[in-house]
């Protein structure tokens, strides 16, 4: 009886520690609050391609955030009665950039470039999820090292070796 109590305590302890470790792995996939209630869904359903607004991933490390000017290019005439669009127009008039909050980010010590990833035929959705269906943009995966490696290690050799080199990403 006593022994059962003692050993079950031990097991509980181990389970507790493991749960603790697991809990730290769980990511809260909450959507950050944006300055303007922007919906990707609306825009994708309107037939706009990702690359129209995020125009640089094929030429640069970054996908790029559209400038206010680009937004205004359409919203001068389209839906300019909506409050969000009027907010946008406000930024345009004040000549202020919109302080968008980053949804998907890489840590500061990581070198990440969109260019080679798109070059291998990946699509935006591979990493960013089905963003075209999102009214509120939120992260769908925790972009951590294991997640990156999951793909990198599946590449054929010798590419996998090269991509598994720490220096491939760490800077």
């Amino acid at each position, binding site marked *: 009886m006593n022994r059962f109590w003692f050993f079950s305590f031990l097991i509980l302890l181990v389970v507790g520690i493991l749960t603790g470790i697991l809990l730290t792995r769980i990511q809260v996939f909450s959507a950050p609050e944006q300055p303007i209630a922007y919906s990707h869904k609306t825009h994708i359903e309107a037939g706009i391609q990702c690359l129209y607004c995020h125009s640089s991933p094929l030429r640069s490390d970054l996908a790029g955030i559209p400038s206010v000017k680009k937004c205004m290019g359409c919203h001068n005439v389209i839906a300019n009665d909506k409050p969000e669009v009027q907010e946008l127009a406000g930024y345009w008039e004040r000549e202020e950039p919109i302080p968008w909050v980053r949804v998907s980010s890489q*840590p*500061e*010590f990581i*070198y990440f*470039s969109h*260019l*080679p990833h798109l*070059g291998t035929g990946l699509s935006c959705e591979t990493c960013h999820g089905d963003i075209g269906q999102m009214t509120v943009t939120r992260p769908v995966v925790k972009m951590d090292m294991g997640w990156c490696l999951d793909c990198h290690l599946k590449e054929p050799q010798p590419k996998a*070796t*090269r991509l598994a*080199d*720490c*220096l491939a990403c*760490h*800077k």
Partner: protein
Amino acid sequence: MAKDANQSDEGIRWALVVDLDRCTGCQACVVACHAENNLQIVGEKEAAYGRWTHWIIIHRYWEGEYPNVKARFMPIMCQQCSEAPCEPVCPVFATYHNEEGLNAQIYNRCIGTRFCGSACPYKARVYNWFRPEFPEPLTEQLNPDVSVRTRGIMEKCTFCIQRIRRVEIDAQAEGRSPTDGEIQPACVQTCPTSALIFGDLNDPNSHVSQLAHSRRSFRLLPELGTDPGVIYLKGGEVNV
């Protein structure tokens, strides 16, 4: 024991040739390195206590006595040893050897045991003793391709891995491989006398591998058997 992968002559081995006959000790490489790699400024007090963070330093050696005195310069940076003494001692693989013969240091993995620093016979590794400070707007100078190291981690010369990678990605986009001399670490790029030459040691046609076979070439502390990737060329001797 298993054959070591780094020993093979296949693939790339990055190497730096330092021509001591050309070096004037002008320190351009030092500042270029600071600018390229976001090195922190430690200030006079810490520098006086051996806490500076240069990745490349120029040793100055005196020879002889007045009036027949000579001073010679010897730039010392991480020697990128094949048999690096710093690598096996790291408990968390923060430093290891990559496929291209680089002695890599992953800052984010480092937990700061400083064992590698103790093990390095060239003392080419520097430590971040304090949180780096960049008074505004000096933060603007930071190179986004290089992480800003926090306190408590080891850092060292990387042969400007970000510049290597940049050229490789560009070359790959153009469907070619980088040409000899196209990749230039910041120190090599700026060296006014071209005392520093960078390239692939395993490519028999590269400038560095030819210089490495020159009669003037030697490596630092060869008796330790570290097989450095930095090759020095002796200063020439011409007497009047």
